[in-house]
């Protein structure tokens, strides 16, 4: 009977989320190099974004679906990717059957910051930092939302009751987010000399995360253009043929 009630509540949409109370501000639209049918990734931007991820986000957030070898897409050489991977240790079983650690290689998946969800929650005041490898596809407005969230921290309104250990963020649904403001001016030192302002870092890391979620975007756009041109030509040819064949019927 209880299950029936729950089901009925779900089916009838009675079970509304706690979050619905505070509707979040829609994130402002930003310029992205990958927008539009000719959109491509900006390699320098992705590398900067990767640096932000490595230096700031990777302490708590994983990229479960990415392997280090994928980083060659960002313009890193094989040697650079090897060096990036080798900074992390992964468990393996040696010839004696003992569990030991070895440096990660490009074929390894990104090493997760925590061994499991409980460890992650224990280290983060009960909150679970989500995996980021699909975050721009798992949120409405994708990269715009991610960039806005990272810059959306502010003082809560006077009448807003903030829970212990939570932050106020105007772009987060419900406005209460467990993640402290991750970016501060100069949190990273960009190799290419770009000034590391908070909006700059937010934009770069959001672009990087969009690549992480949609690594085949450029190939998709390129093939898409060829397919569209082919179909356009086919449409014209078939239309002409149709006109000609039907000429004696009309």
């Amino acid at each position, binding site marked *: 009977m209880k*299950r*029936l009630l729950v*089901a*009925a509540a*779900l*089916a*009838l*949409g009675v*079970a*509304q*989320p706690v*979050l*619905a109370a505070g509707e979040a501000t829609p994130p402002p639209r930003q310029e992205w190099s990958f927008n539009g*049918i000719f959109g491509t990734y900006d390699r320098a931007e992705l590398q900067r974004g990767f640096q932000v991820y490595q230096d700031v986000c990777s302490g708590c957030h994983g990229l*479960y*679906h990415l392997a280090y070898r*994928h980083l060659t897409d960002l313009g890193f050489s094989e040697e650079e990717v090897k060096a990036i991977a080798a900074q992390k240790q992964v468990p393996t079983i040696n010839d004696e059957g003992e569990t030991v650690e070895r440096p990660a290689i490009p074929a390894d998946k990104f090493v997760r910051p925590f061994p499991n969800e409980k460890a992650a929650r224990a280290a983060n005041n009960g909150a679970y930092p*989500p995996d980021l*490898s*699909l975050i721009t*596809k*798992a*949120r*409405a407005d*994708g990269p715009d939302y991610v960039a806005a969230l990272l810059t959306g921290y502010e003082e809560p309104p006077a009448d807003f009751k903030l829970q212990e250990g939570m932050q106020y963020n105007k772009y987060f*649904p419900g406005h209460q987010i467990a993640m402290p403001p991750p970016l501060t001016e100069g949190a990273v030192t960009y190799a290419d000399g770009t000034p590391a302002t908070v909006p700059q870092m937010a934009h770069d890391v959001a672009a990087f995360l969009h690549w992480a*979620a949609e*690594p*085949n975007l450029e*190939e*998709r*756009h390129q*093939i*898409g*253009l060829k*397919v*569209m041109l082919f*179909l*356009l030509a*086919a*449409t014209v040819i*078939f*239309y002409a*043929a*149709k006109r000609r*064949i*039907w000429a*004696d*019927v009309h």
Partner: protein
Amino acid sequence: MAAPVAQNRLVRWIDHRLPVFTFLDHELHQYPTPRNLSYWWNFGSLAGIMLVIMIFSGIFLAMHYTPHKDLAFDSVERIMRDVNFGWLMRYIHMNGASFFFIATYIHIFRGLYYGSYKEPRELLWMLGVVILILMMATAFMGYVLPWGQMSYWGATVITNLFSAIPWIGEDIVTLLWGGFTVDNPTLNRFFSLHYLLPFVIVGVVVLHLVALHQHGSNNPLGIDRKGPQDSIPFHPYYTIKDMYGLAVFLLVYAAMVFYAPNFLGDPANYEPANPLVTPPHIVPEWYFLPFYAILRAIPNKLLGVVAMFGAILILFALPWLDRSRVRSARFRPVYKWFFWLLVIDCVVLTWVGANPPEGKFILIGRIATFWYFFHFLILVPLIGVLERPLPLPTSISAAVLGKGGPKLAGAGAPMEKP
């Protein structure tokens, strides 16, 4: 036995023993078709082609997919990232479901407007409704396979509907789940059935075509063909018209696949299924929204479920609910307006289904649900009796070409194009 279909001796040898070539010649080449079919008649073949695209892309996806609750989500991501052109296969399949439904829904509304369900095409229509139901079951189970948040919670909500059936409901739900909650056995059987049902659809499509070819296509005038001057051979006239329509349709489909592949999807399905966290709004894919709106419009669960399924099942009775003997709405001045009201009603239901059932959406949803059933159960029979249809043209060729019209050279016979 008709004249030999080919000069080639091998073809003739085969055809003498297994008349496939004669069959193809009859059903795809000479097959007499009304000369006045509009572009609305393209959507049947488009739906058929979408079915083929779905089966082929699905077969390749199944080679790489793992139907296990701990691996399904990751295996889909592996397809998206590491399988050669896996992203293309998946986006074709994902958006293909939507375009299959677009083609099918237009095909159905065309049938409603031109009275294609009327005598002698009642069984043709009913087989089409069977296809629609099978498509819905297949699409629903396919959506569960990536095992994202919306997959899981959609499956939970929809399977739970069966618990509303008195006495045996709970047992049916347990049977569907293969356990006491949506879990790995559910995913396994859904995968199995998702692979099976498309081939069942192919079977029913074959019956649909057999029934179609018995009396041939209806046409925009809705009057029967009176003689060879009203028909043209299917090939080359409708083969080329279908090809042209296909190219246009694929153009739109490809634009979605390549430039907005996730536009029609829900972002929540890019989060792995989590039985402990309910998404803020559980919504099905767009093509189920009207039915979802009907389900939620009725405050009683059992009646809501009955209404939802009834909204589809009512189509089976339509050939007998409509008392008008005139098929085409062109000659039905009253029905025509109510047809368009029904179209608007379905759009409104879709919009309501996409929104949480609160505030104005409750009232709008109820009015739209009422109208849906009012249309089929009250208006259609009533208009059929009370309406005074416009005078029908004497024949298709008369209407198309004006009085009598020139006889079409070679009409009804194989046509050789230069």
